[in-house]
């Protein structure tokens, strides 16, 4: 038997190591990293089909039986997220060829990029809470390097803050794991779930639940803890920003989803209520930021925060429809945020600025760019045939069924304001009088457009083909709603 869940982690890891040695030749690094990303996609597709047909796949590392060793668990949710991650990373690598610049390429950009994918795919796949911390650190370490690579003044300044915030949250993560270990005496997630349901979630476990919310909320950017996000994400160049915006916060969200459905589902009235209130405030704060700024990057960055709120709202309602909406919306958001950041990167490459007041009339010379941006803006807001719609529909339906009318109403309202914030970019940046920009001729627009166009097409297919994708999502939600499926798959002899 081959250890299929390992492949999306091993392929980027091995290729990252090889890429370090290939560093002298930029062309070789480009080809090799694109090929390895492609191999990761193929492995994830095979994994997804395997999970669809045979149910949850587990690997016990070193052949230690489940509660004792580290196990990797691929259920439908993690397989879907791993596939999305692989696709986005492939497209970002392709985009990087012509935009990231020779200096960064020759200073280990591609190996670090692959290490980041190792961390993200590992965090999605692992079934051990301490191993989750380790993969978080792999991901964070690579993100520090990617953030500071290039060494401009703004990057150095923002990296310091980003690292400081993440060191504190990592310490808090270890502290939380220590508390959890002293209460339940296990690190295997399935085993923890069994132990907690045996003791019936007393007060101390609820405290641990809130600590986990703080830890993952810091990574994911929920309301009081998102303060570092707009500043830090403003610093790096477009492809790095796209991969950060599309993947890093989503790892935090995935972890909240996993812990709050697998461990802490006994006292929903308290923990999920807090999560619900915080997610609604997150949406409101994000909307204020998205409307208030006149900077393309900032507007889209605040849209990340809105999406975080929307997805976590579905988790807090905790019924089948709302969770299905969350999963739908999570994957949609990963695709469309990557597309938007890459498109914003093209606009910045053409004009040399991200301030909307200095940009206008781009659609005259770049109609394809304009229309791609317009379609992705509509998809972001959730206009029906595109991908955001079905997720929001299920979310709002679940919210109303769960009796949370205020929350569902605010999610609905936020869609309109999201549409306003991105159409503001479209109206101000693409309409109006045509201007000439310095360095406009050098921007390789045609090449750069390949990745965002593929992403937008994927987003449209995701929306139009939601009938075909629905069974996959429902299989993921079934595991989330009934933790016993997950537990039985991991602890086989139970």
């Amino acid at each position, binding site marked *: 038997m081959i250890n299929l869940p390992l492949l999306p982690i091993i392929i980027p890891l091995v290729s990252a190591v090889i890429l370090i040695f290939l560093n002298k030749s930029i062309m070789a690094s480009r080809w090799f990293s694109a090929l390895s990303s492609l191999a990761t996609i193929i492995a994830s597709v095979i994994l997804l089909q395997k999970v669809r047909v045979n149910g949850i796949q587990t690997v016990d590392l070193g052949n230690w039986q489940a509660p004792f060793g580290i196990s990797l668990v691929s259920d439908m949710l993690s397989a879907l997220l791993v596939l999305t991650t692989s696709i986005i990373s492939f497209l970002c690598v392709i985009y990087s060829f012509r935009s990231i610049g020779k200096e960064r390429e020759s200073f280990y950009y591609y190996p670090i990029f692959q290490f980041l994918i190792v961390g993200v795919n590992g965090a999605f796949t692992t079934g051990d809470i301490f191993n989750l911390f380790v993969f978080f650190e792999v991901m964070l370490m690579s993100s520090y390097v990617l953030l500071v690579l290039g060494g401009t003044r703004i990057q150095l300044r923002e990296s310091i803050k980003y690292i400081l915030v993440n060191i504190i949250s990592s310490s808090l993560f270890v502290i939380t794991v*220590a508390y959890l270990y002293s209460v339940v005496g296990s690190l295997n997630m399935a085993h923890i779930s069994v132990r907690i349901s045996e003791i019936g979630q007393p007060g101390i476990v609820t405290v641990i639940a809130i600590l986990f919310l703080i830890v993952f909320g810091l990574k994911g950017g929920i309301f009081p803890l998102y303060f570092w996000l707009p500043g830090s994400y403003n610093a790096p160049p477009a492809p790095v920003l796209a991969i950060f915006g599309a993947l890093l916060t989503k790892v935090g969200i995935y972890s909240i989803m996993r812990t709050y459905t697998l461990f802490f589902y006994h006292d929903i009235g308290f923990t999920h209520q807090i999560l619900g209130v915080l997610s609604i405030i997150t949406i409101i704060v994000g909307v204020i930021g998205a409307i208030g700024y006149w900077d393309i990057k900032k507007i889209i960055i605040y849209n990340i925060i809105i999406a975080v709120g929307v997805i976590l709202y579905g988790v807090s309602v905790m019924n089948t429809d709302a969770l299905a909406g969350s999963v739908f919306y999570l994957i949609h958001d990963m695709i469309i945020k990557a597309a938007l950041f890459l498109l914003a990167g093209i606009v910045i490459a053409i004009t040399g600025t991200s301030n909307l007041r200095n940009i206008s009339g781009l659609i005259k010379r770049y109609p394809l760019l304009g229309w791609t941006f317009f379609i992705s803006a509509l998809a972001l807001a959730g206009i029906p045939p595109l991908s955001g719609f079905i997720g929001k529909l299920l979310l709002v339906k679940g919210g109303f069924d769960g009796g949370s009318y205020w929350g569902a109403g605010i999610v609905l309202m936020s869609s309109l304001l999201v549409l306003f914030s991105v159409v503001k970019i479209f109206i101000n940046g693409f309409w109006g009088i045509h201007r000439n920009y310095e360095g406009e001729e050098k921007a390789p627009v045609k090449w750069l457009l390949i990745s965002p166009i593929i992403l937008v097409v994927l987003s449209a297919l995701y929306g139009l083909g939601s009938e075909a994708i629905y069974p996959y999502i429902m299989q993921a939600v079934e595991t989330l709603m009934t933790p016993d499926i997950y537990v039985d798959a991991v602890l086989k002899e139970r």
Partner: protein
Amino acid sequence: MEILMSFVVGIIFMAATYLMLSKSLLRIIIGTGLLSHGTHLLLLTMGGLKTGAAPLLGEKAPSYTDPIPQALILTAIVIAFGVTSFFLVLAYRAYQELGTDNMDRLRGTEGND
């Protein structure tokens, strides 16, 4: 013994927080080092402190110390070491480039420096 260690951990966290709230970047880095130090001690304490036995699970051993927290601490120490050294290099580079290690002067965005 566990209670005593809890106090020690609390005092270390207190000192770490104080250092991290200061303006000088170097003090902040020392603060993060202290914070991870306290975290490791806490991890050890949470596993339960027993004296007089090796952390090995023999078939017939009358008593043993839980080996898992020690394995976790080893991992966490390595990670904390890597992150701290990266942070120190970054701080030095930032000091060279920006000419200050005062957090008050590291504020702002590109537009309103």
